[in-house]
């Protein structure tokens, strides 16, 4: 508060203007997508108004009626939730083990995991596909979940490792003296205290999986097994290009992300564990 008075008015106005410009620049495509999706398809090509109207939900109804959109949506939900579950289980186990147990060269192990990010997804996707063909997993959602996990897991382990590290071991030990086994202490004390970290990993795993296009394109052949981004792409080829439905489809893909972002704001990595321990 105090500081705001020190900044000259003109500077503040300039700052806000710059911010507004940046926001407008990033959000304009999203805004355009939203208004185009609710615009009457008849006027879609002759109206370049910034304001929508005449309104119509025709794009949505045709999209849902004429395409496999609902199937793709269900597939996406399935794959994203699968990725979240697999990532969480593995990331929690690995990062906890790495934090609490004496393992030689654990920093190196985790560092190595992060190298996965140096490769573009396509470079990973092609050899993975070859492996899945061997395993008979090609063209299955399991294949997609596994390949998404290759991306989400290293980051998840990294994040939770940092989180577990700053949880004081005393708290676990207190629980063990209080009557828990090591596993019991983990479930009753470590997990609840790590909830912000776990939530964060869950959310970004969901995001990564939900928006993935590259892996979906390589791994899945059958139309009815496609996830949303890949499915929407077939629509462009299959039917003649229809902007209204595309915009409506994109809006529906973005909707869960929007909801997630609202939650994301409420969880901060730090905070909950602080205060339990006097430093």
């Amino acid at each position, binding site marked *: 508060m105090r500081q705001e008075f020190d900044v000259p008015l003109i500077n503040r106005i300039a700052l806000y203007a710059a911010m507004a410009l940046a926001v407008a620049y990033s959000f304009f495509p999203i805004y355009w997508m939203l208004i185009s999706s609710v615009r009457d398809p008849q006027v879609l090509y002759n109206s370049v108004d910034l304001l929508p109207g005449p309104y119509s939900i025709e794009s949505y109804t045709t999209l849902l009626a004429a395409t496999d959109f609902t199937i793709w949506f269900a597939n996406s939900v399935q794959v994203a939730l699968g990725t979240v579950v697999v990532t969480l289980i593995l990331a929690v186990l690995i990062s906890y083990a790495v934090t609490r147990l004496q393992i030689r060269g654990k920093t190196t192990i985790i560092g190595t995991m992060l190298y996965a990010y140096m490769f573009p997804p396509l470079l990973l996707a092609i050899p993975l596909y070859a492996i899945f063909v061997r395993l008979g997993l090609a063209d299955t959602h399991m294949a997609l979940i596994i390949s998404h996990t290759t991306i989400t897991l290293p980051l998840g382990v990294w994040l939770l490792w940092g989180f577990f590290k700053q949880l*004081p071991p005393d708290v676990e030990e207190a629980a063990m*003296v209080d009557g828990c086994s090591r596993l019991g202490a983990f479930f009753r004390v470590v997990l609840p205290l790590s909830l912000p970290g776990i939530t964060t990993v869950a959310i970004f795993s969901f995001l990564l999986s939900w928006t993935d296009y590259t892996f979906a394109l390589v791994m899945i052949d059958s139309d009815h097994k496609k996830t949303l981004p890949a499915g929407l792409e077939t629509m462009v080829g299959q039917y003649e290009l229809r902007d209204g439905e595309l915009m409506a489809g994109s809006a529906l893909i973005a909707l869960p992300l929007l909801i997630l972002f609202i939650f994301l704001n409420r969880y901060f990595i730090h905070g909950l564990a602080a205060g339990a321990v006097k430093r």
Partner: protein
Amino acid sequence: MAEVVLDTVSKFFGNTTAVDGVSLTVADGEFMVLVGPSGCGKSTTLRMIAGLESTSGGTIRIGERDVTRLQPKDRNVAMVFQNYALYAHKNVYDNLGFGLKVRGTPKPEIDERVQRAAKMLGIDNLLHRKPKQLSGGQMQRVALGRALVREPDVFLLDEPLSNLDAKMRVHMREEIGKLHAATGKSMIYVTHDQIEAMTLGDRIAVMKDGTVQQLGRPLEIYDRPVNTFVANFIGSPEMNLVEGELANGASRPTVSYQGAVLALPEGQHHRQAADNQVVLGIRPEHLAISEAAAGTIPVKVILTEQMGAQTLLACQTEKGGSLSALMSRNDTTRPGDIIHLSTEPGHIHLFDPRSGTNLFADPTAPGEGQP
């Protein structure tokens, strides 16, 4: 009934010996203090009793049970940690009741015991707060309460007061003393603060380098430290330890310090030291200002420290030896003054200059001295 018996318990961390063959019996209901400088193995000893650290050798018994290989949860001990280790995601009530809940105690009983402990500690108005909404002193009470609710065989406390400010520390020290009296349970208390050790302990184990140097009642240790380490560690300000030489005076044994000849107690036999060289120990509070006479030490006052009720004088002998003397308030002595210090024969300690052991015949040996 739960006495705690440690039989030659050791702990090695790789090449480090943290605890080296400690044998210790804590009687049922006894308040035992483990005291010693940083790194002497106090916490490790306590953690082995709790089961948080495995033993490298020896056995630990609680009551009739050999607990050496038991999990912490099966030992029926409660522990208070230095940084409290409260469950940040639970409120005070659930922190207190957690140990009972885990063990499947019925809800009404949990409630009764939590309420009782909370009242005892004066935290019954905080039961719905989360730990981060508490002050350090309040957190400390919750940590104590969590142990109290459990009604364990033994309480283990690892420097529970070290995070509190000086005033709070004195206050909580009293509270812990009262809790011990009220519960009548065995307590093992780790501290590096010798005042806490002296005031709280029924007995004290003074530790150094993973071994117990001396075990005994507080005043026993104060009066008859077994070696220079204990002499130096227990008592504040520290004991003066200077070089002296034994001699046999006309009527009684004496020790001379830089020309001053001090009488030793009669009838007390001391072991002979090589070349009659000894380390002479006199506590600052046992030195007093007196008239110049035989058997007094002439010194120059270097510094006076006024502590209110008492005055501490830092002094220097002619040959450069330093001595400190503690007396009741003294406004007249100034730095630069030449004074004479005297003591009584019974207040002189003699130590072997090489081994540091007490040369008087019957200092309490480790392992002796039952409550």
